[in-house]
């Protein structure tokens, strides 16, 4: 048999498998989105529907809802592979594990993060957000949700071997999300005042680059601990 090592082949194979699984059970994609939508609906019901008030708190609502709904899918990121033994096979494969992990995180973002970004205009309508703030929200989500996937995957990797890792994982991960939340909401806040918010975006971008470079290594060590 011919054996050719191509990193791209591994990356696309792992990515493709996860996407294929997600599209086979569409609930995985749809349910976090619905959760997001329902959480957003709860806020006007709880604090009243005045458009001005809603527009003011909208960035906070959207981002907190985004944090919670990406949390939902994280638990599943490595769990199935852990339980059926695929994770061991991936570790024992001759490819570097961080690359495999990167592929899985990218797939996770396509499944949970990207739909959120695409649906944002709808949420903006519900919360009476103006166009400026909408653009800022989309941009921050575009930079921020992959960050959430990377940071969350570290927590998921650490807790995958535990019996009831779900809640523990949220406790580990949510504090790590705080910087993302701060810079993202501050960018949107600034945009509503028609000021320049490229600084906050630059910080988010820098954090994303650091995450892409370092998180896969952290995640693979976490997975090795969980498997042993």
């Amino acid at each position, binding site marked *: 048999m011919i054996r050719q090592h191509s990193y791209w082949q591994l990356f696309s194979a792992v990515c493709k498998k996860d996407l294929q699984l997600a599209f086979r*059970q569409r*609930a995985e994609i749809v*349910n976090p989105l*619905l959760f997001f939508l329902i959480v957003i*609906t709860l806020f006007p*019901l709880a604090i009243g*529907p005045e458009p001005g008030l809603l527009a003011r708190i909208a960035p906070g609502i959207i981002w907190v809802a985004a944090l919670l709904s990406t949390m939902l899918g994280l638990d599943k990121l490595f769990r199935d592979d852990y339980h059926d033994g695929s994770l061991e096979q991936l570790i024992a494969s001759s490819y570097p594990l961080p690359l495999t992990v990167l592929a899985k995180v990218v797939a996770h973002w396509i499944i949970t993060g990207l739909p959120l970004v695409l649906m944002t205009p709808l949420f903006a*309508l519900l919360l*009476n957000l103006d166009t400026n703030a909408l653009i800022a929200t989309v941009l921050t989500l575009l930079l921020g949700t992959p960050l959430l996937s990377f940071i969350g995957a570290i927590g998921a990797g650490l807790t995958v071997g535990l019996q009831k890792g779900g809640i523990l994982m949220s406790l580990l991960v949510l504090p790590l999300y705080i910087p993302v939340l701060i810079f993202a909401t501050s960018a949107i806040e600034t945009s509503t005042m028609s000021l320049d918010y490229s600084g906050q975006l630059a910080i988010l971008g820098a954090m994303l680059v650091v995450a892409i470079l370092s998180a896969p290594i952290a995640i693979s060590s976490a997975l090795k601990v969980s498997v042993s």
Partner: protein
Amino acid sequence: MWKWLHPYAKADRAYQLCNTLLPYFAVITVVCMIVGWVWGLAYAPADYQQKDSYRIIFIHVPSAILSMGAYSSMAIAAIVALVWQLRNAELAVIAIAPVGACVTAIALITGAAWGKPMWGAWWVWDARLTSELILLFLYLGVLSLYHAFEDKKAAGRAASILAIVGVINLPIIHFSVEWWNTLHQGASITKFNTNAIDPSMFWPLMLNIVAFAAFVGTVTLMRLKNEILQREKHRPWVRQLLNRG
């Protein structure tokens, strides 16, 4: 009546019944929808207050009525399914749910498109729109519960229970939202003064309501056929269908 209905508890008979009913529903849908839309869009007089934007009513009101109607018929099917243990009724619950969700989505979208010129905002947290949104969540809940189960028998029963719970909750939700709304913004905006509706607008509206109802019926029958086929996949009568078609 029971004697008359009983043979249709069998899957292949129910399938045939769907097949016989389907053309009638389809014809009514096509005729009423074409006439209703042309009448509503081109021939009905413009409203003196809202001008031509009011024409959205010819799809907004039918879809809003049908979103409720489809939910109640789904709940009735669910009750029949649970009380008489009729599997076909369970399948009907699952057949109606996606159609109902679509009609609800239409009501929401047309409501938003009507709201923009009238209230100046695409979305207003108005009592009726909010209840409609919650209704959409209920539909989607039934659907995703059904698809989450591996065992479709259990799935049908679970979805039926949820549909019944939803229909009991629906009035409570509606009144609480109404109360929430009046608490926050005084009297809610009334879109349409119903007793003043002119016959020249009333008849096309009626026609469109019939068209929507027939459409819901048509698609429900089609989906019911699918569900029956899916469940009876391994039976010989389904395999015979292959040879014929």
